[in-house]
């Protein structure tokens, strides 16, 4: 280290060389993390995709050079599997739409809250993410069950006589998914909102715009980057959620993920299971790509308009 003279302002390039020579390059530092992610995510994913084009053989997980599309043909020629895929897309879409609406209003309300209460509000919004999914599902069973909070309340108030069936329905799945993914929608929108000049809604208001107009015509377009990233996350996570549909949707909730679980844990047809995973991933990636493409096209058109 004595080789280097004490210089107040070392040239930028010299410094970079010195640091990298002392630590090895930054590539060396990132190496372990890269290896872990490559070996733990990328490689297994690739292995699984290859497994999906192998001949279905229960209990077998080794790869051969005989490639076949048997599993994909089986999937796409059966109306049952189509209906499962469509139902999964439907549930994920409804969840995302509800989340987008609730998340936007929630983000605006946090944005308008005084800084003193803001931390508490954010904490409340995040809380579902920090509690195990099993606990959350159990909580909803207590709330939505035949003798749960809501039914007891309604019967007590004399509004209904027999308990409403809410648990183990698609409604319950959507409620549970919206509950857990709401923070993933709210926080990106809030981050976008924080960049909005607070004088703008005030200006709109002084020009006679009502609260609803300000929300929809002024704030909503300005938070669209946050909204898009929220929609992306919520949609793909809803597509691939397993525990909530399994616990809250009853035994045969007929979602892609419950089907996948069956293939891997019950019937041991891993090749078909792998094909199901590939189809699920392709669908959610496709939908997300479409969304991002469409928004960027619109943004470009809007920019060109001026």
């Amino acid at each position, binding site marked *: 280290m004595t080789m280097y003279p004490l210089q107040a302002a070392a040239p930028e390039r010299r410094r970079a060389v010195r640091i990298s020579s002392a630590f090895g390059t*930054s590539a060396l*530092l990132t190496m372990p993390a890269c290896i872990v992610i490559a070996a733990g995510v990328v490689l297994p994913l690739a292995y699984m995709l290859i497994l999906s084009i192998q001949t279905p053989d229960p209990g077998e997980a*080794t790869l051969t050079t005989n490639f076949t599309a048997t599993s994909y043909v089986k999937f796409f020629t059966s109306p049952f599997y189509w209906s499962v895929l469509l139902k999964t897309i439907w549930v994920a879409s409804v969840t995302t739409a509800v989340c987008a609406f609730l998340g936007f209003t929630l983000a605006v309300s946090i944005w308008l809250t005084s800084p003193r209460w803001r931390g508490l509000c954010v904490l409340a919004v995040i809380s*579902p993410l920090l509690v195990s999914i099993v606990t959350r599902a159990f909580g909803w069973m207590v*709330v939505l069950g035949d003798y749960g909070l809501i039914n007891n309340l309604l019967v007590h108030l004399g509004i209904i006589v027999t308990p409403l069936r809410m648990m183990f329905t698609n409604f319950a799945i959507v409620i549970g998914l919206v509950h857990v993914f709401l923070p993933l929608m709210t926080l990106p929108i809030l981050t976008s909102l924080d960049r909005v000049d607070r004088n703008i809604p005030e200006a709109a208001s002084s020009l006679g715009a009502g609260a609803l107009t300000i929300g929809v015509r002024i704030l909503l377009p300005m938070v669209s980057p946050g909204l898009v990233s929220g929609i992306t996350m919520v949609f793909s996570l809803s597509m691939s959620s397993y525990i909530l549909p399994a616990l809250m949707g009853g035994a045969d909730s007929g979602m892609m*993920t419950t089907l996948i679980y069956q293939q*891997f844990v019950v019937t041991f047809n891993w090749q078909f299971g792998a094909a199901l995973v590939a189809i699920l*991933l392709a669908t959610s990636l496709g939908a997300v790509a479409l969304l991002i493409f469409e928004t960027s096209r619109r943004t470009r058109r809007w920019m060109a308009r001026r």
Partner: protein
Amino acid sequence: MMAAIQKRAFWVWSAFLYIFIVTPLICVVLASFNQESVQSVPPLQWSLRWYGEAIRNPNFVRGALTSLVVATVATIIATPIGMLGAFGLWKSKSRYKAAMDAFFALPIVVPGLVTGISLLIVLTAADQSAGNVKLICGHVLIVLPYVIRTTLASLAQFNPSLWEAAETLGASPLQVLWKIVLPIIRPGIVAGMVFGFILSFDDVNISLFLVDARTITLPISIMSYLQFSFDPSVAAISTILIGITFVSTLLLERLFGLKRLFAGG
């Protein structure tokens, strides 16, 4: 007049949203103090009976131990790897930096179910069947991205003139890193560790495919209990977990700020 009504309606709506968010958790806590063996909220008679039942349940105790060991080992393995990765990325001037950043987020982006299944396939093909090893492999992937994220976020706020000042005063790069940078970014690293630990402890998606009969984690043993019985002992054990999470969350908020952890920036 119209505006005032709209404003009032908006605040009522927001209050309703907060109720929607916290109701299930509050109901779990309330249900845990039940005297009877049927769920009723609020309880007709209050007692701590089900807490006793929960901590005497051998499956829960064994599950808690497994979860604790797996989450701890995974955090210990993932933290140094993640720190080094974040340092490397921070120092990197490569044009692939953004791609690298995205690559490090891969374990978050790929759904847990998919990670669990593909790990199961590969580990089975490699004849690795020890439950603990499989679980730890999966859980390192849960913790790692969060350590990288929080370390990077802290490094982004690090004032580069401190580095120059230390070097000017004769510190070697390693000394700067160890004595100047590390103490300053420590809260970020600890926040990543705590959050990763919580996620690992609570995880079901990845673990579901990697557990075997002897290494069932706590959330999974709660889940299988739920499929057969619906008594308040699940509420009691869940309340204990909520309590632990709540304390660590307050710690996180103090150390790092929760919004930064989820939304970046």
